[in-house]
């Protein structure tokens, strides 16, 4: 049973504040992913929890007890580094046994625990090798083994698969997930890769410039982004964001994108939900799958011209020129034959998000 809590954590590097008043509660057995661009403070947060970085304000609590004054060695937390950090002069066996030797366990106990972890990770036949003789994936397995062997209160992982090639990354991702389900320890995982975050996390914590932006399940952060940053950071291809003007029509609301001649039709309920929000500070966010494309003229669809077609195998991404802006739509492969083709588009109101451009915050409008 391990809960980790951050209360008002502040961290400065010189004059630069890298963590700004961070509050976060992580439950027992939870898999939390800290997601953000490089330099957003996610790794510093992880290191502060591990005890490798001091904090300048606030509390780090493990199971309710403040630990910010404890040394890393006394926090009973294991960490997997991006660079693997396997001790090059030790064999795989010695690497995995290393944390146990600090606990002064008997030789027999150490041996049985090392072998049991090696079996779980399917690296039993590599125990005699030196790290330099291992492949990237095996190195990471050993690094995870070294972290697991002590049965720590929590596992911290700092971009553990970032250094691997794409195929291996996918394999290891699945393996980490499997291992978490099997071992069930509180895990904090840092990455800048949103696909990794979506596929692994119970909850994703999105950070930007030292500030926590949103905490939520992968589905929540994807379908209900709290602000423009989250909206554009999560999801690939990125969400379309465009300044819009909303006007009242007889039985509907019209949303004009990029100063186009005609607006997209939205239910009238939009007007009451926007509640008179100033039109000049309004942005529409719509994911490419929320832009619906037809080949023939249909009621409620606007005529648009395809500018670029990107075939991505299972689907295409088509850039559509609407007024002065470009909307990216996701279509079936080959649905739009090429650039210059005239098609008809509509925005699915159920998938539309509205943001205040001044604050960047979502207005929480759901239709």
């Amino acid at each position, binding site marked *: 049973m391990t809960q980790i809590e951050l209360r008002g954590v502040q961290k400065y590097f010189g004059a630069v504040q890298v963590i700004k008043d961070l509050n976060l509660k992580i439950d027992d057995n939870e898999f939390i992913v800290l997601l953000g661009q490089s330099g957003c403070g996610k790794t510093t947060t992880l290191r502060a929890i*591990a005890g490798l970085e001091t904090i300048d304000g606030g509390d780090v609590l493990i199971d309710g007890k403040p630990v910010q004054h404890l040394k890393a*060695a006394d926090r009973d937390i294991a960490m997997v580094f991006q*660079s693997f*950090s396997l001790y090059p002069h030790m064999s795989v066996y010695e690497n995995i046994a*290393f*944390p146990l030797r*600090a606990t002064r366990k008997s030789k027999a106990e150490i041996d049985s625990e090392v072998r049991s972890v090696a079996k779980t990770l399917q690296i039993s036949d590599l125990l005699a090798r030196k790290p330099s003789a291992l492949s990237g994936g095996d190195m990471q397995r050993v690094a995870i083994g070294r972290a697991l062997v002590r049965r720590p209160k929590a596992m911290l992982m700092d971009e553990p698969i970032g250094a691997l090639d794409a195929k291996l990354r996918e394999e290891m991702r699945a393996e980490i997930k499997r291992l978490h389900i099997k071992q069930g320890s509180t895990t904090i995982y840092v990455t800048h890769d949103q696909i990794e975050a979506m596929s692994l996390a119970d909850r994703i914590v999105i950070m930007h410039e030292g500030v926590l932006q949103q905490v939520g399940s992968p589905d929540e952060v994807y379908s209900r982004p709290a602000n423009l940053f989250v909206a554009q950071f999560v999801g690939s291809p990125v969400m379309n964001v465009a300044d819009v003007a909303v006007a009242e029509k007889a039985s509907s609301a019209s949303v004009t994108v990029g100063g186009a001649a005609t607006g997209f039709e939205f239910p009238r309920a939009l007007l009451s939900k926007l509640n008179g929000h100033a039109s000049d500070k309004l942005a529409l966010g719509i994911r490419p799958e929320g832009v619906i494309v037809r080949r023939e003229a249909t009621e409620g669809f606007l005529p648009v011209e395809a500018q670029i077609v990107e075939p991505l195998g299972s689907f295409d991404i088509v850039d559509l020129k609407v007024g002065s802006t470009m909307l990216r739509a996701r279509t079936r492969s080959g649905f739009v034959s090429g650039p210059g083709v005239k098609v008809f588009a509509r925005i699915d109101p159920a998938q539309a998000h509205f943001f205040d451009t001044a604050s960047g915050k979502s207005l929480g409008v759901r239709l």
Partner: protein
Amino acid sequence: MAAVTTSTERSLNKLAIVGVLIVTIIFLAPIYWIASTAFKPRNLATTIPPTVVFQPEISPFVKLFTKRSQLRTAPTPEQYAAAPWWERLVFDGGEKVVRSGRGEVQWSGYPNRFMNSLIVAITSTVLAVGMGTFTAYGFSRFRIKGEQDLLFFILSTRMLPPVVVAIPMFLMYRAVGLNDTHWGLIILYTAFNLSFSVWLMKGFMDEIPKEYEEAALVDGYTRMEAFFKIVLPEAATGIAATAVFCFITAWNEYAFALIMTNRRAQTAPPFIPSQVGSGLPDWTVIAAGTFLFLLPVAIFTFLLRNHLLRGMSFGAIRK
């Protein structure tokens, strides 16, 4: 390096090999000269042109280790027959081994000087490399106020020729009684080598990713344990390379050894030329002394050659 392809490149390559060979011969010639003279009979040591083919003998080494005097009268056949083989070699050279009243062989000053050299060079190397490693670790891993200034200050101790401070050092040493002591030379050589050791070791420490120690810290070890269990083994290459350089400096140092010591703690470098002395110098004995003096450094360097190569190119390799 790109593969050599054109014929011009091939001939340039051959030319380079010839150049390297010539330079190697120039550098090795004095060492060959010393080594061959150490095994020559005395009368062949100074022939012009030099004798290249000769029957090697070890009498120069016997003479090197023993105290000798000129033979006034040739030894009687009984004396000659009773003498051990090595004493006969001295007789053959027209000298005799000096013995005490009780008949014990009197040693020359060389073995003592050689031991002094070993004691001083090894101890000062251990101290300089040890302190340098700790200091370099501190500079490499912690944020230290005025770090750059401190590092520059450490380096600045090597900026003036050491001999500039010879006279003040001599007076200081005489005042505190460090003259002609092992510790006197050890302290001096440690101080000389320390700045070099700190700078070289800092380069190596900077190359060791700090994640290794961080991993050890998270694994439940203190920083000191992490240093000894993780950093030191990783720094072995750097330590070996630094040790070779420090050892060579301390082993070869001549000027201070000459000024600061005269008997008890004198090292081999000032002793060997003092044997040229008055009268006809025996160059074979001097060559034998020099040859033996070369060996420890040669052996030490040979044993650590792989580390040394890495040490010479440190900073040039990215991990």
